[in-house]
């Protein structure tokens, strides 16, 4: 009887999930925080952070990573927005098929796709490096930009477009004054899906630049792999987490007024 009562209460169903979250999300985060402020021997220190600011190589990589992420995101918007707009305008069934085609690569492992990109560059006798890296990142993350934008444009009430035409807006004006402003939440959502994962990526950059160009993710990984620099790695992770948190808060407060983003 007692067991049944416990099972019946719906709030109790959340317990396994709460346990999971504590074990695999909250605890690791706390550990990163603790490790970041400790030396190898275990005493409290801020040296890991001062090292980040002083060590120009890490700082440069950090800035370089943000630069690469910015370029990738911009390219994704430039290529993805028109694609999403065209898709949302075409006939229902055809539009769906095209969206599926764009999203199809997402089902293939990201490492496989990067290796395929390497093979493609080899085949076309192109040099791997920065260009290949950006190409690979755009290729990998483009669906994450298209989908939220497509979703938002798709949801725009057709009567807004008619109202704008009725008030004298030409096709171009309908786009610039109504459709584009109303699709901004989708763009914000897309940026979050592209920009943040790009900063922390490491495997893709290693494969596509033959380990010549290193992103912030690679540096964290290097430090984390060795036990004597693990605390430093934890500090770097923490810095990245804080940046991600700041961007998320900024963009979500922005899109809240406009509501109904795409995926987030």
């Amino acid at each position: 009887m007692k067991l049944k009562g416990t099972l019946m209460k719906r709030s109790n169903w959340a317990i396994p999930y709460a346990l999971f979250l504590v074990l695999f999300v909250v605890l690791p985060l706390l550990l990163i925080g603790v490790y970041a402020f400790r030396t190898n021997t275990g005493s409290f220190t801020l040296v890991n952070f001062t090292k980040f600011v002083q060590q120009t190589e890490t700082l440069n990589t950090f800035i370089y990573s943000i630069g690469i992420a910015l370029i990738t995101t911009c390219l994704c918007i430039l290529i993805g927005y028109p694609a999403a707009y065209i898709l949302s305008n075409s006939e229902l069934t055809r539009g769906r098929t095209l969206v599926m085609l764009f999203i199809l690569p997402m089902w293939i492992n990201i490492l496989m796709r990067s290796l395929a990109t390497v093979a493609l560059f080899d085949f076309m006798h192109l040099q791997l490096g920065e260009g290949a890296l950006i190409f690979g990142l755009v290729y990998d993350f483009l669906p994450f930009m298209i989908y939220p934008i497509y979703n938002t444009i798709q949801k725009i009430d057709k009567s807004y477009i008619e109202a704008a035409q009725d008030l004298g807006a030409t096709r171009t004006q309908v786009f610039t004054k109504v459709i584009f402003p109303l699709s901004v939440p989708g763009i914000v959502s897309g940026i979050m899906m592209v920009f943040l994962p790009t900063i922390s990526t490491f495997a893709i950059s290693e494969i596509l630049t033959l380990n010549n160009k290193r992103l912030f993710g690679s540096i964290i990984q290097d430090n984390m792999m060795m036990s004597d620099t693990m605390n430093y790695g934890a500090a770097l992770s923490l810095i990245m987490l804080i940046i991600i948190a700041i961007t998320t808060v900024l963009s979500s407060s922005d899109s809240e007024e406009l509501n109904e983003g795409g995926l987030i």
Partner: protein
Amino acid sequence: MTVPADEKDYIIEVDHVSKSFGDKQVLDDISLFVRKGEFVTILGPSGCGKTTLLRLLAGFTQVSEGSIRLQGQDITAIPPYRRPMNTVFQRYALFPHLNVYENIAFGLKLKDTSSEEIDKQVRRVLKIVGMTDYEERAVDSLSGGQQQRVAIARAIVNRPQVLLLDEPLAALDLKMRKDMQLELKQMHKELGITFIYVTHDQEEALTMSDTIVVMNKGRIQQIGKPTDIYNEPVNPFVADFIGDSNILNGIMKQDRLVQFMYHDFECVDEGFQPDEHVDVVIRPEDIYIMPRNNSAMLNGTVQSCIFKGVHYEMTVITDHGYELLIQDYNQFEVGQEVSLIIKPSDIHVMRKELNSNRIDGTMADATHVEMLGGTFECLPTPGIEAGQDVTVTVQFPKVDLMDYTDEGAASGTVSFILYKGNHYHLTITTDSGEDIYADTQDVWDDGDIVGIRILPEDMTIQAR
């Protein structure tokens, strides 16, 4: 409708316009002329094509046939953004990313109006719609009624020649709707703009309009002043749709004498054939009801009595079995025996479009005729051979309706129900798209799917 003598009076001319979506014809040969400054209401049940007509005027959809002129100029192919008309949408369609001020200024900004002028105009229309001080508000923070006002302001700020309103009050509650009706009427007077107003609410149409256009099934049924439409409906559909009414079958004995409910009534209608079958309309408020006495025309018994605020609404069964709807200030008890009087001027006689079904068909063989999308058994008719095109005549009461479609030779959907005092007159739209009519005592609902059966002896077959 007759072609106007002086076309200069008309701001909008809809000239033989038809519109189809795929196979489905939504508008069938619509002609409509609107005077400058007129308040025209397009009235009809849902699906009658009224919104499509408005969208054609606004330019959101293109006509299949015919043309539309604005002040004598053909605008059939002109895109919506170049038409000097503005629309108030049913769901308002206010831009969610703009505030009240920006929404209203939208049209003016597109025309490169100076910001001082925009400011002046926005304040002017906000005053007209009674929304001063709401400039900076977000549109989704407004109530339905306020959004409606902003939508009207956004349209009239552009000083359109014609304002199109698509059921603008449908989403408001009753009290708000009544207030807005009066305000809209007032605005129409002050602005001097031509209003074309679409609604399914007949009371709204009667209250507000200069002219009402009644539509059904993609066709215009009647165009006229509210009083004309109410007092002189041209057919049972209009009589039934506008206000409450008693519609009965009658026979025109001679000029100014009509027989219905087994009684000869004096009336004011002339020009019918002797013994022509007609429809008679009597409004419930035009039947005088009094305690039973010997001098009255009709006797009956009160079957129900409901208090409606101003008056009582009663149903009375006459001694001959007709059910009449009566409105009176005096209350009569259920079961009370009463007498009724109808004045000659309150009897409205309408010509019947049809006295019986005339169905086009083809003989399959000597004893079978193909019509209404099915094959019906019939009696052999001398001189009529297989393969011949024929017209089959069937009296309304001889069309049998079946619960299940496989019980009939053809099937259809009940599309219009008219109560005629002692029976129902139903319109059935067959699956082949034709309309046939059936008189029955059975109760059917609008939209019921029925089988159609006609006995062989009830058909009269003629060569076509």
